[in-house]
């Protein structure tokens, strides 16, 4: 089973079929521009399936973030082939921004990466124009790592605080 994480306001659980409509709608909106680009329903479904397949292939992956029983985004671990290193990523569906949910979920995900998953470091790859996401990375204590390899030229690498710093 995919582990379930609980925070003050949120539940992080494995993605399921019922999460599909919100995922599809996100990738049909302009909000997907910094998340790999707009996708039609056919393309989005394959990405949704791959989110789940990622857990099977890597042993970790993105959790569905649930608030009051509704999916509000995907947050967690992302390490597809060709990614330079393991990433902590976040996607928040329309209407659920600005309330600190992404930060709350990302902290829980990061703690699980550093704890049970045994990671010793983590990055977040963020499009250089994605100011909201950059602000979130900074709020999480991340710092630009200009020496790190990036997956594509438009991406900035933000390095998360090390496990000892987060636990301290």
């Amino acid at each position, binding site marked *: *089973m995919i582990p379930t994480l609980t925070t003050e306001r949120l539940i992080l659980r494995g993605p399921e079929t019922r999460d599909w409509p919100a995922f599809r709608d996100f990738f049909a909106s302009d909000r997907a521009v910094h998340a790999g680009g707009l996708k039609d329903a056919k393309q989005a479904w*394959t*990405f949704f399936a*791959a989110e789940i*397949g990622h857990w099977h292939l890597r042993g970790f992956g993105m959790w569905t973030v649930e608030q009051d029983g509704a999916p509000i985004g995907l947050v967690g671990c992302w390490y597809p*082939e060709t990614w330079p290193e393991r990433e902590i990523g976040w996607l928040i569906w329309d209407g659920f921004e600005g309330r600190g949910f992404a930060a709350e979920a990302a902290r829980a995900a990061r703690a699980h990466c550093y704890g049970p998953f045994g990671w010793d470091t983590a990055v977040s790859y963020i499009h250089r124009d994605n100011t909201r996401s950059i602000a979130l990375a900074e709020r999480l204590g991340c710092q630009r790592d200009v020496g790190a390899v990036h997956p594509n030229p438009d991406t900035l690498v933000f390095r998360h605080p090390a496990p000892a710093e987060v636990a301290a």
Partner: protein
Amino acid sequence: MTPHVVDVPVLETERLILRAPQASDFDVLAPFVMSDRANFIGGGVDKDISHAWRILAILTGHWPLRGYGVFVLVPKDGDAPIGSMGPWYPEGWPEPELSWTIWDANAEGKGYAFEAMVEIRRYAYAVLGWETAVSYIDAANARSIALAERMGCVIDADANGPDPDDVVYRHPSASEVLA
């Protein structure tokens, strides 16, 4: 530890084990996806390794989303997978399909696909409860058309495929196959 996310039965034929896709399959799948042998299924020499990895992730994720998916074929006299086949129903497909792909060119021409598909079709009808099944085949894919005909499929001119170039082959019905 890999979390258990996929309940996939293991099927068996005379020469093959049919099991869930797994991470190690990538070594055989990736070169296939990036070759011209994959032109009919969305691969090709213009595709990169990240695309190949996503395909393996999709093959896996299809299982929990639909409750069924493709099996990976492994000959009993070897360790390496040779292809993936089975129920396939991604978004945009007019109806659930029985699909087949041989990844390893050296495994073609030995009747593996036919052997696996007969068992998988039986599984789809007897266990999944399907009453009918189609296979969507590119009109230029002569090998695949030959296999469909060997399985008793006939062209269903009234049905649409997901792609305009697809020909829809309709399998014998559940009652015919299970009789």
